[in-house]
């Protein structure tokens, strides 16, 4: 990242596109608090708090969600138990009432239906033995369970067939609200046919070099990134 400025208001959907190696996934990792990355300068104001002062868990508790590009398989930890543990901590943090077992299970049922995730999968170990599409749907299911203020979707569409993409998009669209923002990181304009963004940004060499309305994505799809590189050189 080399000096990136971006403001996302409540309820907005922003898409970030860019060629390989432009820093898209780095941005997602830095925002979520992956300690493999060191932030040397700047700040991230998240609804009044600086995210950079917090570890990944505190950021999540503040309402940030990252849908992983490569969801991690965790043998021995069931999807349900880990979500229960996460919700418990988030509720404690926000000082709101804990869900009863019955409320929790009702929520699981409702949210898994949203992404057509089989009940068997919700009880299995996190992502273990899931297909690529199931893993991505599981990310959206978790997002629906945790109801974040802002969600970053890191190439959630990559490698998905059209049916899975439609299901994922349907889950995201159902979650859109005036209070919730999204940052979609993607290679492909196709995703944006299903999840229509308010803004599209082009990331190149760690900077946002161009921003525009959703039509910018179509232009990128058609012409590639070279014209932007040329425009920059001028």
């Amino acid at each position, binding site marked *: 990242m080399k000096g990136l400025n971006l403001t996302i208001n409540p309820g907005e959907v922003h898409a970030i596109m860019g060629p390989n190696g432009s820093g898209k996934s780095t941005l997602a990792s830095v925002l*979520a*608090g*992956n*300690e493999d990355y060191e932030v040397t300068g700047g700040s991230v104001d998240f609804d009044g708090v600086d995210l950079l002062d917090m*570890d*990944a*868990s505190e*950021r*999540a*508790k503040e309402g940030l*969600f*990252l849908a*992983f590009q490569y*969801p*991690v398989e*965790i*043998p*021995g*930890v069931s999807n349900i138990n*880990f*979500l229960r*543990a*996460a*919700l418990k*901590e*988030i509720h404690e*943090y926000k000082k709101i009432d804990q869900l009863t077992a019955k409320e929790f299970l009702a929520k699981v049922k409702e949210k898994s239906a949203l992404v057509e995730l089989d009940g068997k999968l919700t009880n299995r*170990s*996190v992502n273990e033995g899931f297909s690529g599409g199931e893993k991505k749907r599981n990310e959206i299911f*978790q997002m629906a369970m*945790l109801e974040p203020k802002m969600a970053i979707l890191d190439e959630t569409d990559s490698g998905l067939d059209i049916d899975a993409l439609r299901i994922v998009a349907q889950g995201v669209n159902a979650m859109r609200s005036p209070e919730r923002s999204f940052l979609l990181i993607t290679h492909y304009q196709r995703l944006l046919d299903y999840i229509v963004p308010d803004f599209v940004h082009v990331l190149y060499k760690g900077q946002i070099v161009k921003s525009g309305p959703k039509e910018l994505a179509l232009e990128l799809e058609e012409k590639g990134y070279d014209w932007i590189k040329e425009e920059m050189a001028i």
Partner: protein
Amino acid sequence: MDQRRNGHLKHQNMETTTVKDHKKGAFLERFSNADALVNQLPKLQEEAKIALEQIELPNRRTESWKYTRVNKIIKQEWHAGDSSIDIDKSLFPNWNASRIVLVNGVYRDDLSNIMAEDGLSVSSMKSALAQQRDLIHSHCGSLSAHKEDLFEAHNLVSAEDGFCLLVGKNALLKESVLVENYISGNDVAAINRNLIILEKGAQLNMIVANYSDENEVIFSNDLSEVFVGENAQFTCDLVQNHLGQEQFAINTIWANQERNSRFTLSTSTLKGNWVRNNVNVRVSGENCETNLYGTYQLREKQHVDNHTMIDHKVPHCESNEHYKGILYDQSTGVFNGKVFVRQDAQKTNAFQQNANIVMSDEAHMNSKPELEIYADDVKCSHGSTTGQFDEEAVFYLMARGISEQNSRELLVKAFIGEVLEKIHHPEVKALFGEEE
């Protein structure tokens, strides 16, 4: 010149041997015991005596002791502990079934509480030797390797008590039996020898818990011979909780299985500065099932060594072995699992797995699975993995709002969980913070 050097070297070797003999002699001298059980078992006494003369102290070249040092045990001035002291602690305070209590290797009638149940008989080894002489003569020492292993021979010549538990023919014990083995005092050595006999069709579930307190210097050498009769079922959860720094515990189990029987043992080392477990099962009858499970979570300079041996002698048997451990700080672990599948043992299914997570650069794990297969129609597999903690998984859980500490605990539990779920007694699972 060469000759002189050779001569010099030879001389040095002789000297080392003498020093070692002297060390061994001084160590064994401390355990000479006029009340030892073996004094009434002359044949075994003779066998052990010969073994102790012939077997050298284990050193780095001794294959079965390659990673576990015994010098400190040999050097220490051990003496017998007070077996009459009061014991006011238990990991199972609410236990309301049969309880056997040993204090410093001696069976305590006053603290033990044996429920009247059809087919169950329990006594001290001392009184069994007096009252059931034939039973002891025919069983004691018939499985153990006191002719080959120094510490087994040491156990045989030193033990003056232990428990003898018999489950009669077709007796299905409804309630589990708890054995609590306390060792307490300073520079105290506790040596005991036990017999567990399940007759044909018998069923026994038991918990064996070995304890020693903080700030005490302890050595224990505990040996049990388990006879699982035809169609009998034996399940045991062994718990080890040695809280002090200078404590050395050797725990040896020898089992023999007759046909259609099941032997299941879990070993949970909650804490132990220096622990050596030997589990040996001879599968002598067809259609047997043998299950060995183990967990260890080692911190600081703890050292835990699990040696197992399963000997498949006959066809149509199955064995499962699964040991999992986590090593923190400067701890070291050893796993050595031997499985023999003899030429006659066709259609054997033998599975063995040892998996470890090493949490620090200074922790070490030595894992050695050994399969010796002489039969040609068998299904056997073994695996050993030792790796680092999955930091990606930690980040994934944290990114969902779970604190770092809880994320790590969740992952540790998940890793060990596969073995924990094999533990039979909920009371033992509860010691790991699992819900009953």
